[in-house]
């Protein structure tokens, strides 16, 4: 709770920095507050308190995800240094980031459908603005619009689903809904089922799972790269945290009914995302499709819904997000032309950082001993425990396809540069971002128990 309050106040402070002219220090304030909020979350560890008449519940799940979001934000700051250069807009950006972080924390801690909705709206509305924040680029405006319209549309689905659930159960509170469903398990009204389907549809939109993914590539491609990094890591993690929390606490009793939906969505997302990524020549777009594909694996963890899937989700999200942030650092430095060819010669100029990026790429491809491998492994394990054998086979095939295009990135980095080509060069902040993400990736791979068994 203290974490949430700190982050919300931080957002207000960022706006006030515009009024009271302390914009220069806002970054320092931001770092201090986010670090402080992380510390507060760590201090609360092991407790489980409910606030505001059971609106939010800060249990270990919520705290673990909050810490994840905050730490990712701190790493993200490194790669987005230049994004905050403009004195005019920096207060706004910091405010938007803080608010969306507050939304993310709410999404990991809600215990009431109305809070769920508020969280998702705070998160999304900030993200719409951020997507369009490069005002000089028409593609950024296009991205914002393309993000906003499906986003608003999916919100409609979510609201309708919530209304149906409320209509059937008479409550917004997750535990009340769960109790009601357990009590009426034998003859559930169709309204509940319809509500669940609408909720799933809305959430699949939000996490850009197939077949509701069409907005994602353009949005990821058009947004300023730091924002893309933010969207494909923290926002995605928050959406999944909410997805899992909602379904495990409300609808786990009727899991047999809705898991097939998720499994099918997961299967086509994994296969479709990876196959489409193979055909991309633009690194940013490739990462966008790979991000869609990763949603598929995570959906599998949600569908498995057993004791293992909770740590599986947390681990996968941590591993994926950390590696993604490192990759996006590179994309960010590539400027406006993110063709894979432009990477040629990178390894020759920056052998050390090329090696680190290779590490990150391999982690995303799911190769031991890196974090991404354990994420996938964990997801597969929990799915097999829930007897989802064929989806695991699909997932394994999909990750093989993934290996192909991840290797293309590595291959290009180590190829000889074309004559007169401008080779990507990294700034100090970029280097530290890549170093930190690579170290974390390696650490989580060697000692996965560090975060795997905390929740």
């Amino acid at each position, binding site marked *: 709770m203290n974490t949430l309050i700190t982050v919300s106040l931080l957002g*207000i402070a960022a*706006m*006030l920095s*515009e009024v009271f002219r302390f914009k220069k220090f806002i970054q320092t304030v931001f770092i201090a507050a986010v670090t402080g909020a992380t510390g507060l979350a760590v201090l609360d560890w092991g407790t489980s308190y409910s606030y505001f008449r059971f609106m939010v519940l800060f249990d270990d799940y919520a705290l673990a995800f909050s810490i994840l979001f905050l730490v990712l934000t701190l790493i993200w700051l490194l790669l987005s240094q230049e994004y905050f250069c403009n004195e005019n807009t920096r207060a706004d950006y910091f405010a938007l980031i803080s608010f969306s972080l507050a939304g993310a924390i709410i999404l990991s801690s809600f215990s009431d459908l109305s809070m769920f909705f508020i969280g998702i709206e705070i998160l999304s509305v900030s993200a719409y603005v951020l997507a369009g924040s490069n005002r000089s680029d028409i593609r950024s405006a296009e991205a914002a619009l393309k993000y906003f319209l499906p986003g608003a549309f999916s919100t409609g689905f979510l609201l309708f689903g919530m209304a149906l659930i409320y209509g*059937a159960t008479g409550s917004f509170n997750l535990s009340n809904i769960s109790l009601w469903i357990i009590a009426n398990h034998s003859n559930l009204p*169709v*309204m509940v089922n319809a509500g669940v389907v609408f909720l799933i549809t809305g959430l699949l939109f939000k996490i850009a799972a197939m077949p509701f993914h069409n907005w994602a590539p353009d949005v990821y491609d058009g947004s300023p790269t730091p924002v893309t990094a933010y969207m494909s890591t923290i926002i995605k993690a928050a959406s999944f945290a909410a997805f899992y929390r909602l379904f495990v606490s409300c609808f786990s009793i009727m899991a047999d009914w809705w898991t097939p939906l998720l499994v099918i969505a997961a299967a086509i997302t994994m296969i479709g995302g990876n196959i489409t990524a193979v055909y991309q020549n633009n690194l940013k777009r490739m990462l966008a499709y790979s991000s869609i594909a990763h949603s598929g694996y995570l959906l599998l963890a949600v569908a498995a819904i057993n004791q293992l899937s909770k740590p599986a989700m947390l681990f996968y999200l941590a591993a994926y997000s950390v590696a993604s942030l490192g990759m996006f650092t590179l994309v960010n430095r590539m400027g406006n032309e993110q063709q894979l060819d432009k990477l040629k010669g990178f390894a020759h100029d920056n052998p050390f950082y090329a090696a680190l990026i290779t590490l990150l790429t391999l982690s995303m491809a799911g190769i031991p001993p890196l974090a991404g491998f354990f994420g996938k492994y964990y997801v597969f394990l929990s799915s097999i425990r829930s007897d989802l054998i064929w989806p695991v086979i699909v997932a394994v095939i999909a990750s093989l396809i993934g290996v192909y295009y991840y290797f293309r990135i590595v291959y290009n980095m180590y190829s000889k540069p074309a004559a007169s080509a401008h080779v990507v060069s990294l700034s100090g902040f970029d280097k530290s971002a890549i170093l930190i993400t690579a170290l974390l990736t390696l650490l989580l791979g060697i000692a996965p128990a560090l975060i795997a068994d905390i929740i």
Partner: protein
Amino acid sequence: MGESAILVLIISAVVFSAGGILAGKLLVKSKPSKVKSEAYECGVQTIGKSWVQFNVGYYLFALIFLIFDVELVFLYPWAVAAKQLGWVALIEVIIFLFILFLGFLYAHKKGALRWM
């Protein structure tokens, strides 16, 4: 009862809307002419394109108005039950208004209220 009611609602909604359009198509004789297909602008001919850009100030004003509009929506239920809710609620409402005021300050400072 509940489910069949929804079903009936859906069916009747589809029938009603689709039926209206269909009936229009079938019954009305279509005789298009140039005058008919023009936009009705109080009888006056339109000048220029209809895709004019409005001054962005309109939107900013509308948005700020909307914030205070929504604020009132929150204040009404509180005002109705103010007595039962007591001091705590009063303080909470004041905090709420204060945060909104800070937002207003920000908007002002950003020049949102300046007409360009």
